[in-house]
């Protein structure tokens, strides 16, 4: 199995064996139940679809996610996967939805430079010129401007697994992880998914 779906609980800090302080994100991952197995014969590719979080009235789990797999033999529907598919010290990819920032200007959204705030300057946080005049006579596509920021899919690669707690389905990842507390994150291992 190549990954799990989890939920971000929050952040704290722990000491490692050498006494160094490490910032960690606590994630409740799994147990995930196999919802569907995709095979070469039937679907043209191999993958395992897993679900996370049971729903009260419906049979289908609240969140579904598909992971590519080299081998799908031996994996059946209803099988459960827990955090022990990962190992401490392993580096994985974590995907989530970033925190929405709403409408933001170019300074925050695209790291534009700011104008002088004093010394008689009237140019503070404006975007400046967005193109030439008659030629080309339009604004070029993809011009970075103000607008909605955040609330988009973000992936973080090479995130170190600091600790695993199989009993509580908890996993501690070094550093920050995309999304707010309680947000759904996908933990992914294996180069095929990376």
């Amino acid at each position, binding site marked *: 199995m190549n990954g799990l779906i989890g*939920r971000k*609980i*929050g952040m*704290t*800090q*722990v*000491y490692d064996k050498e*006494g160094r*302080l490490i910032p960690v994100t*606590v994630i*409740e991952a799994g147990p995930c139940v196999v919802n569907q197995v995709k095979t070469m014969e039937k679907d043209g590719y191999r993958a395992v679809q897993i679900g996370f979080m049971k729903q009260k009235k419906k049979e289908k789990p609240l969140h579904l996610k598909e992971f590519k797999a080299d081998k799908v033999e031996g994996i059946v529907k209803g099988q459960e996967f827990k955090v022990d598919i990962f190992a401490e010290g392993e580096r994985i990819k974590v995907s989530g939805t970033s925190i929405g920032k709403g409408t933001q200007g170019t300074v925050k959204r695209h790291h534009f430079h700011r104008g002088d705030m004093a010394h008689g300057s009237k140019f503070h946080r404006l975007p400046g010129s967005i193109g030439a005049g008659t030629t080309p006579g339009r604004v070029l596509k993809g011009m970075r401007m103000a607008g909605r920021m955040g609330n988009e899919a973000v992936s973080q690669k090479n995130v170190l697994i600091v600790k695993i707690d199989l009993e*509580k389905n*908890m996993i*501690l990842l070094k550093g920050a992880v995309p999304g707010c*507390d*309680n947000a759904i994150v996908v933990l992914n291992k294996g180069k095929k998914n990376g």
Partner: protein
Amino acid sequence: MLNKNAIKEIEQKEMKKEIPEFNVGDTVKVFSEIREGDKKRMQGFEGIVIKRQGGTGSRATFVVRRLVQGVGVERTFPLHSPKVGQVKVMKKGRVRRAKLYYLRKRIGSAATRIEEAK
């Protein structure tokens, strides 16, 4: 559904069971682990505790200030760090502030003078 207690449990494990007793205003000697190549040894740092923060949590820290050749030096120690060993109270101090930032502005002997507690 959000299990915030899980964080508390993790932090509980990181905390020391026995915390040395000292307060702001006390003159203490803090022994912390220092690595020199392969060797480990405990180094002392003596000064006045000017700040304690973080309360009873696992992230609690304290700041020790001392004068080295007339220059103020402050070190922040995480209270629960395994690298921070014994905290020896040399002198109990009586102060009327929670944070002794006013010591930073003092020069000479006034910078280290604190009324002793009875």
